[in-house]
């Protein structure tokens, strides 16, 4: 035992404890963490002389070039919102590991040129408001937050189940879109798939003790019904002349649910959604933007 240990006990004055860590070792470990790394750098592919805002989303190269909708609801929501308020941007295919916050989407603004500060998704709306002076829609209607919770919880939960936990859909859609592009190794693919499914399962089990498929779909059905009567005969939600954030949020799910190109094997949500023709037409109207 190092001599410092006894000194430490004397200065401490307390009854010496057998379990006390010797001060030199303690001092060494108090120094941890030795360094804290800064946020991740931007991907090397980012063009240095960029002219346009770059929005990083889940997408594939071909769709990104043509500005097609992303296949991830969260990314598509912001992609659609920026389009609706009239901000020009380029879509760059990316994944979570490229993002400084660990989540997509994020935006690399064109101006000012010299900064490499990115805008994460929860600050995108504020940024857009500063850019084009559009209004903050949450403030305009008390119902905004309540109806938004339908999409953020009920429809999202049903979506998580349909995409990740329905085995056929997972193999046909999620694996093709999220897992296969990242690697060709089948072992890594299997591990990634397992992680994705496990994450979805954990998310659903946070709010209930077991996954009740019937309840998830029933909730989604109610949610579509409520959204449909909120939209009514209007062009856009809350009778706005132009589509806004809420329309983008709804479109992000309705488009992906109704998109035949994704190759769903079982699409119960689409069956439920097609019962509300105004929501289907709403999606078709907004698809014109892309």
């Amino acid at each position, binding site marked *: 035992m190092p001599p410092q240990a006894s000194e*430490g006990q004397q*200065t*401490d*004055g307390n009854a010496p404890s057998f379990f006390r860590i010797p*001060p030199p070792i*303690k*001092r060494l470990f*108090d120094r941890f963490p030795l360094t804290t790394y800064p946020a991740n750098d931007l991907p090397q592919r980012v063009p240095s002389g960029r002219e346009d805002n770059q929005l990083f989303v889940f997408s594939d190269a071909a769709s990104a070039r043509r500005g097609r909708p992303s296949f991830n609801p969260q990314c598509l929501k912001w992609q659609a919102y920026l389009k609706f308020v009239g901000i020009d941007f380029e879509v760059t295919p990316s994944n979570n590991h490229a993002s400084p916050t660990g989540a997509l989407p994020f935006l690399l603004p064109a101006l000012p040129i010299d900064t490499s500060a990115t805008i994460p998704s929860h600050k995108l709306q504020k940024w857009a408001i500063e850019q084009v002076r559009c209004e903050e829609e949450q403030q305009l209607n*008390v*119902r*905004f*937050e*309540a*109806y938004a*919770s*339908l999409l*953020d*919880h*009920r429809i999202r939960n049903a979506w998580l189940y349909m995409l990740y*936990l*329905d*085995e*056929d859909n997972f193999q046909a859609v999620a694996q093709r879109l999220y897992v296969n592009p990242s690697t060709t190794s089948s072992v890594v693919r299997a591990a990634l798939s397992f992680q994705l499914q496990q994450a979805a*399962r954990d998310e659903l089990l*946070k*709010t*209930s*003790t*077991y*996954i*009740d*498929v*019937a*309840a998830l*779909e*029933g*909730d989604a059905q*109610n*949610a579509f*019904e*409520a*959204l*449909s*009567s*909120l939209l009514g005969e209007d062009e856009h939600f809350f009778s706005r002349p132009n589509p806004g954030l809420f329309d983008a949020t709804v479109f992000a799910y309705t488009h992906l649910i109704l998109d035949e190109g994704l190759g769903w094997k*079982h699409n*119960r949500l689409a069956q439920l959604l097609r019962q509300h023709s105004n929501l289907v037409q709403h999606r078709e109207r907004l698809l014109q933007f892309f």
Partner: protein
Amino acid sequence: MVLQLHVWGPAFSLPSIDAQCLAAIAYCSLALPKGSWELVATSDPSVSPTGELPALQDGSVWVSRFRNIVDYLRQYSDGEWDLDHQLDETGRADSIAFSSFIESRGQILLDLSLYVSSQNYYGNTSPAYGSLLQWPNQWILPPKLHGAAKARTEHLGLSSLDLQAMEEQRQREHSAGVAAGRIPKNLITRPRDTVSKLLGRTAQQNHFRLDALTGEFFEPLEAMLGQKTYLLAATGDDAPSSLDCIALGYLSLALVPELTFPWLRDAMRTKSPLLAEYTERVRQRCFGQAPVEVAHAFSPQSAPSSQLPWRTPSRISVAAVGSTLLDTLADATPLLRNVRKYNSLKAGAQSPDADLSGLEKNVVAQAANNGKKDMYASVATVVGGLALLVGYMFHIGMISVKAQGHGEEEGTEEVSDMDFNAGSAADFLSVGGL
């Protein structure tokens, strides 16, 4: 047959400690005629086949979750016991949207207030559970609920409300200071930490975060309520709807409990005075004037004035204790936990009220079966591997039965250990398969 509503027991002078249960109690007390239902403070989710409370028992039929109960009561009474029948289309849509809003946002705030804030959890919530749960559940369930609440609120980054974690951090810094000998010992005081102090020290932004969270929750509701009697009432004297029951469940748990650190109640009173007044009014209408005490639930004679039709819960049976212990054990065992998960998925798909098409039902059940087969395969692999190892050790003579007593003891111990494992796993699987 009298309908029985099984709920988590009373706490904080409310008839239940759980928001969904409070909502179900409020709904039954408003919609059902007196004498047609009884309230049982079971406080044990394992009584219901779905493992959830609140659960409505109608003979052999069990219905759990608030929305399912509401639907069931409507069908049961041919549309008579339905608080939502007067709603028009907009009202129905609002009811769905605001229920979802209250359930998602309210649950998070209650988690933060009752479970994650350690002062409140150890000072109020945990003792409340202690007085309403029976052995052994009082040792098993509260930590489980505490963990679940922490998991639900993890993404908010407000773990500094969790004083226990903060205290460890503080002690580390403190002892580092002492060890470095920079601080004379007699100058070191150990002040009692309060949340506001810690918050002040760690990050002011926690204040802002909590403030924003409570604001986001209370303000839309306050605006929706306005000067009306009930949330969806068209005129002043309209009747309450199921949305009011949900709102009462979550808001009363925010408003009524006397907590050590009442940030949620303070926020509610300052940000939404109308909502606080509304909660108090609806609460008195549904649960009666007098505060509910734990004794009311367990000996209804002691509270003849109580508005709620309490019925004494049956004593916990030895079999139930056994199955609870076995369940806990199984949930703590890695492989068994997964098997249980797949089983519950299958049960959900095959439940009679699932309105899945036949094909989808099969698909889900198949997925569950496949997953389970994988699990069995890995269990079998592990057991087979162990058996091979033991056999090999016998073969090369590392363990020899004929050798000294010591070796023999070791060998038999190993074998009997394995027997026990296999036995309990098989028992459990047969239970799960039912």
